[in-house]
């Protein structure tokens, strides 16, 4: 358990941030919110890098009470990966990692093992200044693990990396999170839904909600709704990849879903985003068309907006939003409980 109730005051402004919450320390807990909402400040308070006031307790151990720091930053044993890699520029890769090893006692990780897992074996003797951003960040992740941390904190670690590096690192992080809990700041819904079972939503300098990503994204009371209404993320089980037709044949809550993809997926599940404006709602399956995806859903909620009606469609556990016009809504005579077929063009699913 990580419990925090901290107030951060700023020297030259009246602004005051107050973060309060409690999370389970298992797996990945994503920290999500707009830029400038205070995500990084919350992390820095937890790390002990930012003077703040309040209480921080981790697994029954008090780190901070009032203005008294009981466990200083250097004894909190948190592995940190910042947005920039921050490798020491005067040392080579091996020496950078050795600095972390020197501070750990009996780490389950070793430099060579991580170098192999993260694919930087050939870089160990290189100067860090010669490496690319992706290479540096992989080494920064290894460094954070080598201190034998009780918690990993990552502040948008993949935001500056290219797609292929992200694809390689995400499964690695997910696997790590089975043994070491991770607090993970991100702007990416894909990373959020892929990695985390738990999220902290930060809005305007405070914790707005804590819960499962799927639930929070459906809550129209939260600031998340502006992301959600563009489209929700679905978890798709991958059954087969057809390389000739460049198509992933998958399964979402027991119903088939086709996703176009150039390359075969890495894991056995993928996250796709279905744009709410690309969903066609019909009372019967549309026949003899190019549409491949037809999902039977139930209308569980709807909301009238000035220019459209937003339907919340439930599969089995997952949800889709659909934007339709008021006229269509009335023509179809929809209400809560209606069974409808949601059609999505394969090409418009964002993989």
């Amino acid at each position, binding site marked *: 358990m990580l419990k925090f109730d901290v107030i951060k005051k700023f020297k030259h402004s009246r602004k005051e941030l107050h973060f309060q919450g409690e999370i389970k320390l298992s797996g990945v807990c994503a920290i999500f919110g707009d830029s400038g909402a205070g995500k990084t400040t919350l992390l820095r308070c937890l790390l002990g890098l930012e003077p703040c006031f309040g209480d921080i307790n981790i697994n029954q151990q008090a780190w901070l009470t009032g203005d008294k720091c009981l466990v200083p930053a250097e004894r909190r044993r948190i592995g*940190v990966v*910042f947005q*920039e890699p921050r490798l*020491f520029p005067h040392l080579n890769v091996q020496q950078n990692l050795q600095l972390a090893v020197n501070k750990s006692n009996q780490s389950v990780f070793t430099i060579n093992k991580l170098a192999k897992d993260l694919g930087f074996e050939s870089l160990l003797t290189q100067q860090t200044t010669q490496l690319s951003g992706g290479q540096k960040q992989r080494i920064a992740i290894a460094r954070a693990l080598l*201190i034998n941390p009780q918690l990993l904190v990552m502040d948008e670690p993949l935001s500056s990396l290219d797609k292929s590096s992200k694809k390689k690192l995400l499964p690695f992080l997910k696997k790590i999170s089975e043994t070491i809990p991770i607090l993970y700041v991100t702007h990416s819904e894909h990373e959020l839904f892929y990695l985390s079972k738990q999220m902290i939503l930060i809005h305007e300098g405070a914790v707005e909600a804590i819960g499962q990503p799927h639930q929070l994204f459906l809550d129209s009371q939260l600031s998340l709704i502006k992301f959600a209404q563009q489209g929700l993320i679905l978890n798709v089980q991958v059954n087969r990849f057809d390389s000739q037709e460049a198509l992933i044949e998958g399964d979402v809550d027991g119903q088939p879903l086709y996703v176009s993809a150039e390359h075969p997926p890495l894991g056995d599940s993928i996250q796709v985003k279905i744009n709410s404006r690309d969903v066609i709602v019909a009372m019967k399956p549309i026949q003899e068309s190019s549409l491949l995806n037809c999902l039977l859903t139930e209308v569980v909620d709807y909301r009238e907006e000035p220019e459209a009606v937003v339907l919340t469609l439930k599969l089995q556990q997952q949800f889709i939003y659909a934007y339709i016009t008021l006229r269509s809504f009335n023509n179809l005579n929809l209400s809560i409980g209606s069974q409808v077929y949601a059609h999505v063009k394969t090409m418009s699913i964002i993989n």
Partner: protein
Amino acid sequence: MLSTGDYQAIGLTLKLASLTTLILMLVGPPLAWWLARSQAKIRPLIESLVALPLILPPTVLGFYLLIAFSPEYFLGEWWLTFNDSSLAFSFTGLVIASVIYSLPFVVQPLQSAFINLDKSYLEVALTMGYGKYERLYKIIFPMLLPSFIIASALGFAHTIGEFGVVLMIGGNIPGETQVLSILLFDHVESLQYGAAHQLSFILLTFSISLLVIIYGFLQKRQQRVLNA
């Protein structure tokens, strides 16, 4: 070639410069760190005092030191309570004067390195478990090693080159206060141009090679680390 007097002066100069550099490298880094990080109101005043020898004519500094060292004033008087001879015209007096005179040459490169040192590296070290003093020895010092070498080299070289202050408070006692620059002046005054040429050439070669090493190698190396 070089006379015994020349050798004696070279030895004395090296001794003075080494001792001065040693003291400066003990005093300089903490002072530079404070100047780089402190928000105190008094900081600009201290910074000005440290920089003063850069623009003040050395003779002015020498004159005030001469007065301070004289037995009629506090420092000189206090010194005489446990020493037989006066601070003025002594080697110890020269060391004190050199430390003051060369202080900015040690403090300024270090201060600039400390200012340019990205705090984020220290944060990383902190989260890795490195405490205050460990960060100093294991991170800051190795990272800024070129600047530490530059600072001590400049302090050393500048002490070797000082003339005005030594002239005012050192007198010209062979083996005690007769350093290279003073001996050179002696040679010229007594029209021994050959001897003057030799000493000048030695000082010139030394200074140029030192500066080439500093600007051509050390500073570049440090910039690479600081700009990374």
